[in-house]
């Protein structure tokens, strides 16, 4: 065992030392694998960034009440009377004045022009009640002021402001027949709410002639079993047919759908690129052993074994792949980590998120690169080990 290990180490060192003599083929293999790793990490970072944004949204102590069977706020609907029934149901926490901590809201879609694309996209315009601010985790007014109830004013999330035109505080923007004044910008710790525009729910009702209707009721629940109490109470009430969600769980479920979609599109691309990278590695390794056929034959004539020769060739391929993988990961990290983008979520509105190139994801990229190196190196390794020494020694 000592013998072949020493031989393999010596041969692998020789192979790697000779790499600078073959910069072209080595560079082709490395760049192919770097591209694969970069795309692989890019796709996964998009999905993980989206998931991170969605998972960071919502509080476990906030319940979301939607019409029964609704999977999104957009297709839920309540009358004002029903919203009042929910407001005073048991299980809901009360503030210092004894008022229920509830925000009955509307989730409306408007069109805004993307800054980078120049085309219109769906943006969520959410009508909230005054309690709506405090029900959001990490809510902070970062600039300007909050909207004045009763006026056509709105505050914009940080993500929405950075992605769409006309959303600077102080600017006015027209949605349909109505002109709105942007009064400020808010943050919610990078959650999905930062992709939204918020206004007074009553103003939104009148702007779009929605009567006294709402789509969702948000409520802070009272204690650990508050949501259960609320769910039971609303379930027993004949005037309602609703589902009660944990706000956190609701957004987490929504994240899964879109992240799966991104992965389902991105992974086949990565697999195709992986096949290409395997051929690049194959080509590089065949070129490597062809260029050193006489050297390898000499080493085997001297007494180096076939197995160590194969193993060293495989190691060279894996090292090349590793270097390509590191390069791809570095490119993905510097080019994509924190890069802001938006996509249409299952709420039918654009969700702004940051690509998240995480250490776990980089690790997966490197593993993918190593697999390519291993697969691409197997056949050249077999050829290096089984080539006729006598004929290779005669090659010039």
């Amino acid at each position, binding site marked *: 065992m000592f013998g072949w290990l020493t*031989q393999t180490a010596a041969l692998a060192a*020789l192979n790697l*030392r000779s790499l600078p003599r073959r910069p072209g083929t080595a560079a082709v293999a490395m760049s192919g694998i770097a591209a694969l790793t970069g795309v692989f990490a890019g796709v996964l970072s998009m999905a993980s960034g989206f998931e991170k944004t969605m998972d960071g949204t919502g509080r476990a102590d906030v319940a979301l009440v939607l019409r029964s069977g609704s999977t999104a706020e957009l297709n839920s609907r309540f009358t004002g009377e029903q919203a009042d029934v929910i407001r005073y149901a048991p299980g809901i926490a009360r503030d210092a004045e004894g008022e229920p901590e509830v925000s009955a809201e509307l989730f409306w879609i408007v069109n805004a022009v993307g800054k980078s694309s120049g085309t219109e996209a769906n943006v969520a315009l959410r009508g909230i009640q005054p309690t709506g601010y405090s029900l959001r985790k990490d809510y902070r007014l970062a600039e300007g002021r909050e909207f004045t109830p009763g006026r056509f004013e709105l505050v914009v999330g940080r993500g929405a402001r950075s992605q769409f035109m006309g959303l600077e505080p102080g600017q006015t923007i027209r949605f349909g027949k109505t002109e709105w004044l942007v009064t400020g910008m808010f943050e919610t710790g990078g959650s999905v709410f930062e992709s939204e525009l918020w206004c007074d729910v009553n103003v939104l009702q009148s702007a779009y002639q929605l009567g006294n209707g709402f789509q969702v009721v948000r409520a802070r629940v009272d204690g650990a079993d508050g949501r259960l109490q609320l769910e039971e109470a609303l379930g027993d009430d004949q005037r309602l047919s609703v589902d009660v969600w944990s706000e956190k769980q609701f957004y987490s479920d929504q994240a899964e759908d879109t992240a799966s979609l991104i992965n389902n599109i991105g992974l086949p691309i990565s697999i195709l690129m992986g096949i290409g990278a395997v051929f690049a590695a194959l080509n590089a390794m065949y070129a490597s052993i062809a260029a050193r056929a006489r050297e390898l034959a*000499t080493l085997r*004539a*001297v*007494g180096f074994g076939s197995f160590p020769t194969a193993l060293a060739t495989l190691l060279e391929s894996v090292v090349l792949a590793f270097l390509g993988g590191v390069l791809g990961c570095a490119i993905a990290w510097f080019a994509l980590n924190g890069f802001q983008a938006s996509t249409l979520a299952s709420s039918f509105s654009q969700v702004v998120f940051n690509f998240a190139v995480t250490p776990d994801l980089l690790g997966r990229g490197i593993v993918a690169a190593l697999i390519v190196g291993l697969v691409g190196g197997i056949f050249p390794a077999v050829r290096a080990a089984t080539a006729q020494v*006598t004929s290779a*020694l005669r090659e010039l």
Partner: protein
Amino acid sequence: MARELIRLAEVSKNYRKGRELVRVLEGISLAIEEGDFVGLMGPSGSGKTTLLNLLGGLDKPTSGDVEVDGRNISNLSTGALAKWRASNIGFIFQFYNLLPVLTAARNVGLPLLLTSLSASQRKKHVNTALQLVGLADRAKHYPRELSGGQEQRVAIARAIVSDPPILLCDEPTGDLDRATADEIMSLLQRLNRDYGKTIVMVTHDPRAASFAHRVLHLDKGELGAAPEEIH
């Protein structure tokens, strides 16, 4: 009288080239004693290098036996042959076959990586071998920094560094000018005379062959001269 070190008995070697069977060697029988210096001459394609490869365990005969120091190497596996070569054979090639990415010392030290010697012991052996070929001062030079004659001397140092009893030389002066070729032949002669190495050398050059104790002629796969050597 010296003992018999190498023995070939009715050795034949055939290759298949498409549908055609090429008979390279036909029923070769030969004995080489320990400390002998044998020149092997013959026209191109006569099978000289093939014979050398069979002696060195780089190839296996189609039929017949190759015995070295009483051991039949014809039936050894590829792995066993590699081990056997490492301790018994030193190869010297026409184009030196040095590894361009290694210094002279590291090239010479390659066969020692197959032994259990420590790094310091290996270094000592390498220095001795380089001194013997007169290149101790070129130890840290790369092949591209050496002349052809110096490269061949490094290759000879590599061949002798693990002290194998047999040196197999394939046209060792074929790429060198007359004066340098004479230097190389003198070196081989000294290794044979002073260190008892048994040498088998393929050559086209009668001047190089004149350094050998005896010369065998191979033509169309058959040994044609020195009938007293044919069993």
